[in-house]
């Protein structure tokens, strides 16, 4: 399991109901069931990953964040997790709304487009920046809605979401040291991780 998935797991209380959107190979689901006693389920868009997960006994269904969340009842889960996918969905704001409708908490991780390397590359070369994190050319990338950590915070404010926890991590999932300053995190964090809830909950 990736280190940032460990950080996500640390945000989740044992014995709770969890929906992992984009559950991939099911590593987080398996970990949450085995070590936390969670009722953890997944949604995955890649059918091969779905088959592999179900063949490992994990409850995963084929589907995606844009189209399948609307079918769940309100507060069906304690946590709804979206890992490194927000930038690739069709309607990120709607997906967040659905996550915080069907879940009491949302855990969202995404690659930070405000990282200094991206800023520098765009400034110096005048071309779409390519880095280890942002490694596909503009005409091929599935990442159609990139945002920075500050952008994401602004959206949370507009939508009335309470940020219970946030952290910046590097690409390998190591927790970055600039947890005190959002501006530093926005400059140096490669990935961002947020724990949200709706105001009044």
């Amino acid at each position, binding site marked *: 399991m990736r280190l940032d998935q460990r950080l996500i797991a640390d945000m989740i209380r044992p014995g709770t109901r969890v929906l992992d959107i984009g559950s991939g190979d099911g590593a987080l689901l398996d970990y949450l069931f085995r070590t936390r006693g969670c*009722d953890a*389920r997944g949604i995955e868009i890649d*059918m091969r990953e*779905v*088959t592999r997960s*179900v*063949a*490992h*006994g*994990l*409850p*995963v*269904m*084929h*589907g995606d964040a844009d189209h*399948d969340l609307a*079918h*769940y*009842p309100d507060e*069906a889960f304690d946590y709804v997790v979206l890992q490194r996918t927000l930038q690739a969905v069709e309607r990120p704001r709607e997906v967040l709304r659905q996550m915080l409708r069907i879940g009491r908490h949302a855990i969202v991780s995404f690659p930070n487009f405000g990282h200094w390397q991206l800023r520098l590359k765009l400034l110096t070369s005048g071309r779409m920046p390519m880095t280890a994190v942002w490694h596909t050319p503009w005409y091929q990338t599935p990442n159609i809605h990139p945002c920075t950590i500050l952008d994401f915070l602004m959206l949370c404010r507009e939508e009335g979401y309470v940020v219970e926890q946030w952290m910046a991590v590097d690409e390998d999932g190591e927790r970055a040291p600039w947890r005190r300053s959002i501006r530093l995190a926005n400059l140096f964090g490669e990935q961002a991780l947020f724990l949200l809830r709706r105001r009044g909950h």
Partner: protein
Amino acid sequence: MDQTTPTQIEHAHMLFPEGMQLECGFRLAPVRVAYRTYGTLSAARDNAIVVCHALTGDQYLAETHPLTGKPGWWSRMVGPGLPIDTDRFFVICMNVLGGCMGSTGPRDPRPDVAGEPWGTDFPPITIRDMVRAQKLVVDALGIARLFAVVGGSMGGMQVLEWAATFPDMVFAAMPIATSPFHSAQNIAFNEVSRQAIFADPDWHGGRYWEQDAVPARGLAVARMMAHITYLSEEALTRKFGRRVRRDPYNQAGAMSLFGEIFEVESYLRHQGSSFVRRFDANSYLTITRAMDYFDLGADHDGDPSRPFHGTRTRFCIVSFTSDWLFPTSQARLLARALNRAAANVSFVEIDSDKGHDAFLLDEPDFDRTVRGFLSGAAEHARIG
């Protein structure tokens, strides 16, 4: 024609003299349910799996069929070490109510008229009636909770009905290549099958036994048409293409209109003629009608999620890419209905070019899915 007739075989069964109340209001008594079991029931009676058969299947799941001499219809799936592992699970398969392989059906003598079978007067039954009849056997075996109910096509409808009607009895449910309701297109196909039977001169208004006849032509045509719906264009092309051969039964020779036959024609004729040896026309009508009536949302303002509200059953829905009889779109409707009920759902679409019949055939990804889902569920149920 084969000399063994289905009625000559004694099928293992349980008899329930008090019978059961059908959904139509009729009290059917006695009720007999023919069944087979595989594996051993654990001391805690917690390892039982009911496998539900499809329209023309029967209880001979994983052993040589006494009538046809062929392997059981799911012998590649059920057995020692197989995905539904009989070293681990106790598997029960029952002939459906209305069937013709030993369970009470239209060929049985009616209690009110001496010496006469039910025939077309057999009361209309539903998928839920089939499941209630199966529950009589499960209760009689002293099993309070089934570890799993598994089935494809009409068997999948029974799985859903088990989970909806007896939610506390079903720990895990695996509806395969099925739908939350029978679609208009599928009702239409069933109607063509039935009309083929009605059009046979040997039908005799359903009282064919009086004339010592069976509507073999009609039933064979029904089977031929239905069999096409179980395959896919790709599968037919792969198996038969446009290959032609001389028709050995046509004396006129190659110059006549039907002197040559396509291999796909020959195959379908064989399917039709072998089917009539083992199936009863009135049973076919009764069971296809039960499928047509199937609609999980019927008693719930058309919402198929309502029967599952509060369910604790773990579901695994499986569909196949080339299945156009029970397409993935219908499986997805089911998955979303279960999502609305906040049920624990896995949903896999298996890549296959074999059409609806894929669930009966060699599909390694499907085998892995069945094995994995059952193992995962067994871990949650804390059984061996």
